[in-house]
């Protein structure tokens, strides 16, 4: 029955111009339409200036939206009288620069900000803060009283993510979540997100200029370029258009890059290779090694 309910998020012929009507107007989104269903894991991919961040901002109505373009759970978020506070309690966004969304000076207080503002009882808030900080590898007892500004960049990013997780939003949007993390931090965050998505049946949206991180998290890609949707489909289908993606300056996953190179040697190599294991198996087959 799932497909019968309205999509959780929908953009319908979305257009957006910053500073519209002034000499400094800049057109960010020209025409974008897509739907995201509950529980989907979607990667929004595109080069810089493609409009990814504007699309992210539109999900929580952080722009001067016009009616009839952005829908949450079937309702127009720009309609007069729409409850924006409720929308923002349901769509959690982790921004590119974590510092901008940290409000309080102390780690524990900052993570508690969202639940407190939502009116949760103190006990529940404390439980959520503990749970979120622990999940991100910042042990609650050790970190809750630390000053945010004394933390490293990677730790601040994790505090920002914890602050959003503590809200228990059904939709989680991450804008370039892997930027500034070391390989171990990336792996840990990746595992955490996959686990959370399953446990909480999250709708997960990941924005990135690189397909390698997003391909491990998402099952569908929406590729943007210059404010338009260029490709939209399951990960493997989109990756089949590797040439087009490379043209757009989108970083492909390493096995895909490898497979493209090997294709010069073995022209019959299938186009939808995604993981190292698949590539290895196909190569071994062709080299005649059992």
């Amino acid at each position, binding site marked *: 029955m799932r497909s019968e309910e309205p999509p959780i998020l929908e953009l319908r012929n979305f257009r957006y111009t*910053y*500073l519209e009507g*002034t*000499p*400094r107007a800049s057109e960010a989104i020209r025409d974008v339409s897509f739907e995201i269903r509950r529980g989907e894991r979607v990667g929004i991919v595109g080069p810089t200036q493609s409009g990814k961040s504007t699309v992210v*901002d539109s999900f*929580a*109505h*952080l*722009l*001067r939206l016009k009616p009839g373009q952005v829908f949450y759970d079937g309702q127009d978020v720009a309609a007069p009288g729409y409850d*924006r*506070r409720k929308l*923002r*309690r349901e*769509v*959690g*966004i982790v*921004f590119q*620069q974590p*510092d*901008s*969304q*940290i*409000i309080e000076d102390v780690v524990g207080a900052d993570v508690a*900000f*969202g639940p407190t*503002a*939502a009116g949760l009882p103190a006990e529940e808030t404390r439980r959520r803060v503990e749970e979120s900080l622990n999940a991100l590898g910042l042990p609650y007892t050790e970190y809750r009283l630390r000053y945010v*500004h004394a933390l490293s960049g990677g730790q601040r990013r994790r505090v920002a993510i914890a*602050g*959003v997780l503590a809200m228990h939003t059904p939709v989680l949007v991450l804008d370039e979540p892997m930027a500034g993390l070391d390989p171990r931090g990336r792996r840990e965050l990746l595992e955490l997100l996959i686990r959370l998505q399953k446990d909480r049946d999250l709708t997960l949206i990941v924005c990135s200029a690189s397909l390698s991180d997003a391909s491990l998290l998402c099952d569908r890609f929406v590729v943007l370029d210059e404010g338009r949707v260029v490709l939209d489909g399951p990960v493997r289908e989109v990756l089949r258009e590797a040439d087009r993606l490379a043209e757009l300056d989108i970083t492909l996953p390493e096995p895909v890059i490898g497979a493209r190179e090997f294709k010069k040697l073995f022209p019959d190599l299938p186009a939808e290779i995604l993981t190292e294991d698949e590539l290895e198996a196909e190569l071994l087959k062709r080299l005649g090694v059992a």
Partner: protein
Amino acid sequence: MLELQRNVIFGQFIDTGSPIHRMDARIKLVITFVFIVASFLINDFLGFAVVLPLLVLIQLVSRVPLGYVLRGSQLFLGFLVFVLFFQVLFYPGDVPESSYLWHWGFLSISTEGLYTAGILGLRVIFLYYVTTMLMLTTSLVDLTNGLELIFGPLQKIRVPINELVLVFVIAIKFVPIFIGEVERLARAQTARGVPFDEGGALVRARRIGRLLVPIFISGFARADLLATAMNTRSYRGGRGRTKLRQLHATGADWLVLLLVVAWMLAAWQLPDRLVA
């Protein structure tokens, strides 16, 4: 949602390629200086009435949309009205009893107070308008070059002109950057449940106050980064530096300067003569 860049245009440059944009930056700076001096000399409404057509002319020739300038000056004008309100209420001085319109303790509204506040208001608007137009029509590079050339001779007596001009230009350049930063912060915090887009003007203003600390921190970080960037690129002032683009003042530029000076003299002197 908050789009502060609409409401604060200070320090922005809008390239419309108009004749004013193409003028020599030095001449534009001198003209601005003439305007500033004139704003202090002109002392009655009639004088400012003489100035007005020139400002309208500048606005038309510059091709910068008037609506944009007005909307971008809202915050400034609001602040000015606020200040002038107190100027009127607390107007000191020996006011004859007949000119009091309202009186309560040390607070009063008198015709003298209103007149002074009116002149003061016009003076500040005039000053604000000409400096804003200077920045809207002059790129930062031209502005820097112009200032360095005008004050260049002072370097002979060891005044560090290049450094001073640089500091001035950086200060102006930081205004739009800060405004962009405030917007970004407000957006991120709205997403977390601080509704910057709700409530009356006062509530919103108080919420922006919350952003002061993060803005200061990022401001210092930015300044630090800029200093490092300049060091790594071997910045050492303007000594021995040549310019790719030379400024040229044409006859027309000088003619404009002459016209402005004459116009301002007229605005200063005419009203007195007329009355006398």
